[in-house]
């Protein structure tokens, strides 16, 4: 427990606490507003559509908010000093070495994926995926007011991505990852000499197909097996399209929009599957899965 308090009281981790508190607070606020709007049919915002003058009604809100934020920031800055550690020294690597807090979700991904996915492909997909949202969400309802009932799929997907895959992984990366990026519960003390005994296996080896031949060359059968597994994740895209292309929703979506939605969604599902393949087996005393697909050029 001391360990947890020590991490939490580090000045640089205050944003994590603010993140947790504000995400919980605002989620609850939005949820109560959405539920109220959904129950009464007409959103509150529609009842407040009469015009008011910006001076004074909006400017005064901005003015008060400015004073409040400045007061908080000044008090925060007087109370807590920004960290300044020993001079930079390339010969002395701290353990654990952590990126700034907002990148710790991505650093946590390094446990489950090789750096080219965790550090390059995933961030790119997140950015491109976010930018695509307005163009792939063709639901006309829920524009300009809080609602859940009218856009359940969109809200749930976003909340899963934001709350679970972004915020929760940042919290895990900050609070629960100690030396060697090993997992430590809050009541455990970080032990720099702890060596987790992990015998990683590849998914194909669970099915009796070794990744490498005795002479250490790659086994083509394992490669084909891996490719089939990765392919199987994305095949439903085509099958569902063939089956349902004439339904109203799919006609309205169109093939390109549908493919982008399906690809992004299945990539997110794939990410979760890979995390479970890594974390799940040790619970049952089995070896965690390292790779699904091993090729001479890259591994997934």
């Amino acid at each position, binding site marked *: 427990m001391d360990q947890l308090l020590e991490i939490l009281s580090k000045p640089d981790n205050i944003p994590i606490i603010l993140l947790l508190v504000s995400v919980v607070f605002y989620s609850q606020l939005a949820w109560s507003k959405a539920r109220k709007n959904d129950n009464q049919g007409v959103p509150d915002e529609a009842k407040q559509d009469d015009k008011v003058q910006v001076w004074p009604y909006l400017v005064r809100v901005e003015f008060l908010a400015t004073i409040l934020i400045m007061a908080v920031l000044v008090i925060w800055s007087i109370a807590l000093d920004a960290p300044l550690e020993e001079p930079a020294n390339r010969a002395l690597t701290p353990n654990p070495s*952590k990126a700034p807090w907002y990148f710790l979700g991505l650093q946590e991904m390094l446990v489950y994926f090789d750096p080219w996915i965790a*550090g390059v492909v995933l961030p790119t997909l997140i950015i491109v995926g976010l930018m695509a949202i*307005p163009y792939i969400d063709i639901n006309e309802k*829920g524009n300009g007011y809080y609602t859940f009932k009218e856009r359940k799929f969109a809200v749930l997907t*976003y909340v899963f991505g934001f709350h679970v895959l972004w915020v929760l992984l940042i919290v895990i990366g900050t609070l629960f990852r100690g030396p060697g990026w090993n997992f430590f519960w809050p009541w455990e003390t970080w032990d720099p000499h702890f060596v987790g005994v992990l015998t990683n296996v590849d998914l194909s080896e669970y099915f009796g197909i070794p990744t490498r031949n005795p002479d250490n060359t790659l086994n083509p059968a394992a490669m084909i097996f891996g490719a089939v597994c990765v392919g199987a994740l994305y095949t439903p895209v085509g099958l569902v399209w063939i089956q349902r292309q004439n339904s109203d929703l799919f006609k309205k979506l169109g093939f390109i929009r549908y493919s982008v939605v399906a690809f992004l969604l299945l990539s997110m599902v794939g990410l979760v599957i890979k995390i479970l393949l890594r974390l799940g087996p040790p619970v049952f005393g089995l070896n965690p899965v390292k790779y699904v697909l091993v090729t001479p050029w890259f591994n997934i």
Partner: protein
Amino acid sequence: MFDALKKTEVYKSIFRHSYQDTQRNRALQIVDNVFLHLHPVRVPRHATNIGYTWGMGGITFLLFLVLTITGIILMFYYRPTAQYAYEDMKYLMNDVPFGPLIRNMHRWGAHAMVLTVMLHMFRVFLTGSYKPPRQFNWVVGVLLLVLTLLLSFSGYLLPWDQLAIWAVTVGTNMARATPLLGHEGPFGAELGMRPDNDVRFVLLGGTEVGPPTLLRFYVGHCIFLPIVASIFMAVHFWRVRKDGGISGPDTGKKQF
């Protein structure tokens, strides 16, 4: 005496209208002010409701202004070379009057800004405010989110202490695994990428985080990224107005 002042040419050239509380003066207060005319004269009532807007976009902009001002002050005391950077930080924290306050405000303001950008995005998503006609402004907003993260990350290196150099080492090590462009990334080696010519080398100005990296990140942090962010912010705010002001339910009434 004040009345006499109000009749002078100098006063009238600065203040164009009287302060009597009339509809007309309330409108002029907005349109005759270069800073306030970002706003429309009138807005729907729900736009002034902080429960609807959360005020996160505005707070983000406020923090950007605070960071610009404190950042300029910090630049007076800081030299971006490996030889001096850390010493300048020590000097700033121990000997410069109000040095720690300015630096702390810059540091905590930056953390807070990352947070408020995320919350602003969350609110805009939940109210469906990216839907037509505001699709493109959401894209600009995503770019601003990326720029905010880059600004924060590039600033992280500048204290040139252990925390800075290793956090940035961890972050930029990812670049060597970039597909095609990194020497450890898929097909990188096949395309002739080496540690001394790949994308990470370009980013760092070397094969590891060193003095050239400090200068690169400094210039990026203080000049390049703020300028780019300012341009996108201008587009972002302008588009808010052009796309019909703050989002709200379609009640059949015209926005303006």
